[in-house]
C-alpha cells in the first residue's frame, strides 16, 4: 500500500492545529490554578465538550468498531456502559465532589479524612489507573501511524505521538488542554459520523448490513447496495457473532472445552462483571473526575455531566456501524493481528469508497485518521495532566516540598509531565498484541474497585473512617490490578510464544485456567467480586474503628451536599493560600 497524500495531509493538520492551540493557550496559562483546574472557570458547554473530548479515546474511536467487528454483539456492552456509566457519576458523585473544591482526587481523599497518609494511597491509584488507560492510547497511536505510513514500525508511532502530547501538556497544563479537548470532541464527532453516512449511501444502511448476518436471512438474497466478501476461517460464524454470549464472553469456557449450553452461565458471569466494571469504573476515573473541579459549582457539574452523556451517547451509536459494515466488506482484517487487525477498521473502511468515486475514500479515510489522532491525543493529554497533577501537586507540592512556591510547583508540573510521558511511551510499546478496547476496560475495572467505592461511600456515608476507606480501596484496587495484570501478561506471553514458535513459560497458568474457566473470568473481569469486597471492607472496618470518624464530619457533609446558595461551599485548595495547604 502506498502513502496516501490526503490521509497524511489531514492527519498532519490535526497535529499542527493541536500543537498551535497548545502554544496559544500556553500564553494564557499563568497560575498553578490554571494548570491544575483551569482557574475553576470553565462553562458547562466548554467543559462538556472538553470532558467528552477527553473521554472519547482511541478505545471509543477505533477500539469499539474493531471489537464489534471481531466479536459482534458482546462488544456492544462497551459503548453502552461507557456512556451510561456517566449516569452513576451524575447521580451520586459529580455535584458533591465539585462542592468540596479540591484540585485532585488525592486532595479529596486527604481532605475528607484529614489524613496526609491517605493522599499517598490515592496517588498510587491515580498512577496505576492512568498508566493502564495510557497503554491503549499508545496502541491507537502506533496502529494509526503504521496505517498512514505503511512499513513504519509500531513503536515509532508510539514515540512520535508520545513526544508531541508530552510537549503540549508541559506547555499549557489543564487550561491549555480544555480548549484543545473541546475542539477535538467536535472533530471526532464529525470524523466518526460523516464518513459512515457516505459509506452507507454506497454500501447499504446499518440495519441492512446487520440483517445479512442474522441466521434467518442466510438464504435470502442481499439487500440493494449491500455487498459481502467471503469470511475467512478466523472470523466468527454469523450466529455466534450476532447473538449475545458470543466469542468474547464465552472465550474462557469455550477454551475449557465446555458445550455451548455449559458456556452460557460463564458468559452471564462475564457480562455482569464487565457491566459493573464499566459503569462503576466511569464514576471512578481520576482523569475524568478531576475535570469536574474546573466547573464553577456543583450544579454546573451536574449539568455538565448530562451534556456529556448526550454528546458521547450520540457518538457511540456510530463505531458499531463501522464494525458491522467492516465485517461484510473487509473480512481480511480477521486474519491479521496487532496494528494490522480489526482495530484499524475505522481507518480503512472509508478507503473502499475510492472504488466508487476516485479520491473520495482517501479524503474520508484521512478524516477518520484525523479523528483517531484527535482521540488518542486528547485522552493522552488528559491522562498526562491527571498523572502529572498527582506527581507535581500531590507528591512534590504536598509531600516532598510543602513549602514550595507556586512557581516551583509549576516547574515541577513540567518536569513531571516529561517523566510520565517517557514511562507511558515505554509501556505503550509493549502492548501491540492486545486489543485497544479490552485494555481500556481493564483500567475501568481497577477504577471501579478502588476510586468508585471510595468516592461513593465518602460522599454518602458519614460513618466512614480513614482505616475503612483505605482498607477497602487498597484491597479492592490491588486485587483487581493483580488479576488483570496476570491475565494480560499471560495473554501477551502466549501470543508471543505462538508467534515465535517457542514454548510458553506460563503454560502451567494456562492449564490451570483451562481447568477452571470461572477463575479465569474472575481474574480477567474482576469487578463482580472486587467492587462488593471493597464496599464491604469499607463498611466493616469503619464500624470497627468508629471512634476515628473525623470530628468535623457533619461540616464536611454539609459542604458536600448543601446547595451553593447557602454559602457553605469551600475551595479545599485556594490559589491565595500560601504556599500550600
Amino acid at each position, binding site marked *: 500500500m502506498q502513502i496516501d497524500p490526503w490521509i497524511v495531509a489531514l492527519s498532519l493538520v490535526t497535529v499542527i492545529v493541536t500543537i498551535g492551540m497548545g502554544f496559544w493557550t500556553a500564553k494564557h496559562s499563568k497560575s498553578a490554578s490554571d494548570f491544575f483546574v483551569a482557574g475553576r472557570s470553565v462553562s458547562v458547554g466548554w467543559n462538556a465538550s472538553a470532558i467528552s473530548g477527553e473521554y472519547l479515546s482511541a478505545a471509543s474511536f477505533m477500539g469499539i468498531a474493531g471489537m464489534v467487528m471481531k466479536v459482534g*454483539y458482546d462488544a456492544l456492552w462497551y459503548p*453502552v456502559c461507557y456512556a451510561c456509566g456517566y449516569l452513576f457519576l451524575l*447521580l451520586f458523585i459529580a455535584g458533591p465532589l465539585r462542592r468540596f473544591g479540591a484540585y485532585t482526587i488525592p486532595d479529596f481523599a486527604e481532605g475528607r479524612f484529614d489524613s496526609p497518609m491517605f493522599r499517598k494511597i490515592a496517588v498510587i491509584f491515580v498512577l496505576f489507573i492512568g498508566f493502564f488507560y495510557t497503554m491503549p492510547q499508545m496502541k491507537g497511536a502506533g496502529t494509526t501511524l503504521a496505517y498512514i505510513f505503511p512499513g513504519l514500525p509500531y513503536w515509532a508511532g508510539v514515540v512520535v505521538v508520545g513526544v508531541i502530547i508530552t510537549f503540549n501538556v508541559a506547555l499549557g497544563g489543564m487550561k491549555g488542554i480544555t480548549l484543545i479537548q473541546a475542539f477535538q470532541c467536535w472533530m471526532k464527532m464529525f470524523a466518526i459520523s460523516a464518513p459512515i453516512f457516505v459509506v452507507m449511501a454506497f454500501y447499504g444502511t446499518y440495519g441492512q448490513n*446487520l440483517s445479512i448476518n442474522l441466521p434467518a436471512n442466510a438464504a435470502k438474497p442481499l439487500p440493494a447496495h449491500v455487498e459481502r466478501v467471503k469470511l475467512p476461517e478466523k472470523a466468527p460464524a454469523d450466529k455466534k457473532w*450476532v447473538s*449475545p454470549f458470543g466469542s468474547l464472553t464465552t472465550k474462557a469456557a469455550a477454551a475449557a472445552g465446555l458445550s455451548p449450553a455449559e458456556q452460557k452461565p460463564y458468559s452471564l458471569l462475564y457480562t455482569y462483571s464487565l457491566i459493573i466494571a464499566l459503569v462503576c469504573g466511569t464514576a471512578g476515573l481520576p482523569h475524568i473526575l478531576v475535570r469536574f473541579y474546573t466547573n464553577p459549582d456543583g450544579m454546573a457539574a451536574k449539568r455538565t455531566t448530562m451534556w456529556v452523556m448526550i454528546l458521547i451517547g450520540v457518538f457511540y451509536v456510530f463505531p458499531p456501524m463501522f464494525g458491522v459494515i467492516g465485517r461484510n466488506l473487509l473480512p481480511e482484517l480477521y486474519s491479521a493481528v496487532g496494528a494490522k487487525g480489526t482495530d484499524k477498521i475505522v481507518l480503512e473502511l472509508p478507503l473502499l469508497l475510492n472504488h466508487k468515486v476516485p479520491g473520495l475514500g482517501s479524503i474520508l479515510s484521512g478524516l477518520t485518521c484525523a479523528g483517531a489522532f484527535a482521540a488518542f491525543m486528547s485522552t493522552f493529554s488528559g491522562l498526562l495532566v491527571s498523572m502529572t497533577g498527582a506527581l507535581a501537586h500531590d507528591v512534590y507540592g504536598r509531600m516532598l516540598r510543602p513549602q514550595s512556591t507556586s512557581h516551583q510547583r509549576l516547574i515541577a508540573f513540567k518536569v513531571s509531565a516529561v517523566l510520565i510521558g517517557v514511562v507511558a511511551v515505554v509501556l505503550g510499546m509493549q502492548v501491540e498484541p492486545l486489543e485497544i478496547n479490552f485494555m481500556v476496560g481493564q483500567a475501568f475495572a481497577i477504577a471501579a474497585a478502588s476510586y468508585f467505592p471510595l468516592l461513593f461511600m465518602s460522599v454518602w456515608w458519614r460513618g466512614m473512617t480513614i482505616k475503612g476507606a483505605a482498607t477497602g480501596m487498597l484491597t479492592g484496587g490491588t486485587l483487581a490490578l493483580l488479576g488483570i495484570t496476570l491475565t494480560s501478561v499471560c495473554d501477551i506471553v502466549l501470543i508471543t510464544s505462538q508467534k515465535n514458535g517457542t514454548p510458553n513459560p506460563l503454560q502451567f497458568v494456562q492449564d490451570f485456567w483451562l481447568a477452571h474457566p470461572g477463575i479465569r473470568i474472575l481474574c480477567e473481569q474482576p469487578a463482580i467480586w472486587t467492587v462488593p469486597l471493597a464496599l464491604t471492607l469499607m463498611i466493616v472496618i469503619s464500624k470497627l474503628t468508629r471512634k476515628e470518624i473525623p470530628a468535623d464530619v457533619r461540616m464536611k457533609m454539609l459542604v458536600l451536599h448543601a446547595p451553593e446558595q*447557602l454559602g457553605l461551599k469551600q475551595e479545599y485548595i485556594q490559589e491565595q493560600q500560601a504556599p500550600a495547604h
Partner: protein
Amino acid sequence: MSSPHEDIHSEEFLHKMMRRQLRLSIWCGVTFCIALLGMPLLNYFLPEVMATEVWGFSLTWLILGVLFFPFVWIISLVFIRRSIAMEKKVGDDYAN
C-alpha cells in the same frame, strides 16, 4: 426554634437534605439498573424473543446499540430537573 442560619448547621437539616438527595439518586439509579441488568437476563431466558428481527436488527441489538442511549438521557434529564428544583427550594427556604 433556632434561626434559619443556625438550622443549616444542624443535624436535622443535614439528615433531611441527604435523605432527599439520596432518595432521588437511588430512584433514578434503580430504574437504570433494572433496565441494564435485565438485558443479559432477557438474552439468557428469552433468546428467541430477543433475536426477533426489527428493521434489520435483532431486537437485542437494537435496544442495546441504539435505544439505550435516549433512555438514559431521559433518566438524567428527570434527575437534573428534580435535583435543581429540590436544591432551589432548600436554598430559598434557608437562605432568607
